[in-house]
């Protein structure tokens, strides 16, 4: 097969965010900075980006279901049409950015890349980047399910307009974001000012880049609270994030919230898994719970297998492969993470434990 190597595939960044959060500002910065790269941009048809560029294209946000019996397998048909057309001009640009409307669900956009063999061969989904408004996000999380989806789905979150809120309000909204998605890279910005390499070329969907599954806020990053939150990690078989009371308390400056609806579940075990039990279990899980599982990722250690197995998924679509041999001194530990809506935590935990060899 003349499979193109992934380096030749055109990277695609999906830019989401509620109305007025600063998507267009970020997009304009990406397009106007002197980085020497050319971007093709797919804007929603009601977009207001005022750039005269033949590589800026409007797309209709029509979403349709795939005929595979899964109601969560929705794709953006018009996006396929536009991408097919843009790919005829491959070589005229280095990467593609897809801007969605504030009300859009990122899932159909992401799934479009997994459901079409031509797009899969010629493009690679790079990351879901969500721009959030520091002042209004808390309100939107209460009244707009789309806003919550966009946070839960994100690989990179720009918490923008931080100059419009007090430090207290900022740490509050940050904690709200972390209650939904502890794994995304979070950057606090004003006027969407951020080094572009923090947003582009992230390889967030690249199996080779699944290194560890620690919540991003433990990595220090650019945050001021890099201490260990031992109460929710290191349990033998994982646990439910933020499942403790009281619901609102502080740990060294970072508030903790529990989002009633959207949570992440992190599971881990240092016992080897049986692939003949794990794969049927995870397939069945995403088949049944697919609509509520937004993102999933895993690093797996199987019995009689010297290779690390990694997977990542969007709703019921899973993509997995052997990544590399386990290191000599590396702890053979399996970890999986689900972010989703009203996830059946106990059922998932029990199921995962039943996969131990």
């Amino acid at each position, binding site marked *: *097969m*003349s499979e193109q190597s992934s380096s030749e595939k055109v990277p695609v960044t999906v830019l989401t965010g509620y109305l007025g959060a600063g998507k267009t500002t970020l997009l304009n910065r990406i397009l106007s900075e002197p980085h020497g790269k050319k971007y093709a941009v797919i804007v929603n048809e009601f977009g207001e980006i005022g750039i005269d560029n*033949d590589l800026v*294209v409007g797309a*209709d946000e*029509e979403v*349709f*279901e*795939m*005929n*595979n019996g899964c109601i969560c397998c929705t*794709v953006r*048909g*018009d996006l*396929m*049409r*536009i991408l097919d*057309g*843009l790919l*005829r*001009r*491959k070589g*005229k640009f280095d990467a593609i950015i897809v801007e969605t409307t504030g009300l859009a669900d990122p899932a159909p956009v992401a799934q479009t890349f997994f*459901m*079409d*063999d*031509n797009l899969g061969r010629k493009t690679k989904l790079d990351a879901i980047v969500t721009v959030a408004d520091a002042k209004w996000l808390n309100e939107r999380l209460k009244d707009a399910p789309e806003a919550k989806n966009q946070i839960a789905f994100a690989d990179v979150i720009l918490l923008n307009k931080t100059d419009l809120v007090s430090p207290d309000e900022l740490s509050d909204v940050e904690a709200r974001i972390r209650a939904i998605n502890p794994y995304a890279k979070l950057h606090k910005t004003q006027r969407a000012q951020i080094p572009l390499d923090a947003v582009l070329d992230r390889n967030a969907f690249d199996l080779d880049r699944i290194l560890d599954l620690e919540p991003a806020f433990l990595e220090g990053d650019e945050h001021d609270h890099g201490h260990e939150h031992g109460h929710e990690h290191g349990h033998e078989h994982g646990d439910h994030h933020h499942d403790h009371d009281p619901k609102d308390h502080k740990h060294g400056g970072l508030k903790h919230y529990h989002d009633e609806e959207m949570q992440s579940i992190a599971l881990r075990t240092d016992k080897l898994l049986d692939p003949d039990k794990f794969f049927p279990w995870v397939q069945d899980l995403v088949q049944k719970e697919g609509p509520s599982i937004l993102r999933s990722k895993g690093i797996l250690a199987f019995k009689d297998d010297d290779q690390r197995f990694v997977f990542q998924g969007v709703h019921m679509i899973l993509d997995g492969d052997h990544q590399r041999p386990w290191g000599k001194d590396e702890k053979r530990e399996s970890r999986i993470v689900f972010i989703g809506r009203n996830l059946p935590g106990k059922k998932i935990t029990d199921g995962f434990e039943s996969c131990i060899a």
Partner: protein
Amino acid sequence: MSDTRSDIVSVVERTRLVAAGGAVVAVHFLRRTAVFVLSEEALVFAEPDGETRRMAIHGGAILATAADGERIVSGGDDGKVVTTDTESSRVLAMDPKHRWIDHIALGRDGAIAWSAGKSVFVQAKTLRTFEAPSTVGGLAFLPKGFRLAMAHYNGATLWFPNALQAEPERLEWKGSHLGATVSPDGHFLVTTMQEPVLHGWRLSDGEHIPMSGYDARVRSLSWSAGGEWLATSGATQLVLWPFHGKDGPMGKTPRLLTPTDYRIDVVACHPRKAVVAAGYGNGLILLTRIDNAIILAKNVGDAPVSALAWSADGLLLAWGTEGGEAGVIDLP
């Protein structure tokens, strides 16, 4: 594969390579001139006398072409519908909003149809327009009567552009329909879908004919001379659906020819004989008789074969690849 290759070359062919200068997305014949459609901007003419020339016709990507032997009509991301013959090209229409021209179809008597997103246009004596219920995936004229079939989400629509009062006929089938072809006898409409399946309708009564079993989305369809078979891409075998008789392939299995390790990306039936040319993802072209005898195998490079076309007399087969290789095969 290897066992079939040794005893295949039962015809002696001559191949002329053509410097296309870019990825080839389609090829058409204008009489005996092979015209290669590049993914961007230009057509490359390979004249019978061996001369090659390039003609720029669009200001960006060429998204769709259709030909009738005398002219090629193309649509581009510059919003233009362009008609080209062996001498020159001219702009037939310009989308008022500069939208991409996604699909083109040619009908009898010079009628031309194109679509831009949901909007469908037919230019015959007058220009008619129609809004499809969703983004149009493909267009095809019916052979009889002035009627256009359009594929879209959840089915297809049949429209009489001249019958202003007549309600368009809606054919429903859930999913995204991306390409359309009508059998030469006008009895069947077949669409390609986003899933690796085809869907057919018998037009007399709307009876459904789902056709499945593919490895990948079907992107290329070609009717055999006489219209008895529909040859299709999308599998590692050449899949031919039987369309003789009033039921078409209803309840029948397709004929499967020439299994290989690679997927067929493009097919073209011989205009007169029961022979199909198939282009594979590894740069292989196979000429197969529908009775399953391979008569020619030719490797034209490593890139997927993306375009195949026969001259009207069936003596020339033109091919192009995604990698920009192109040529014309002269067959006895």
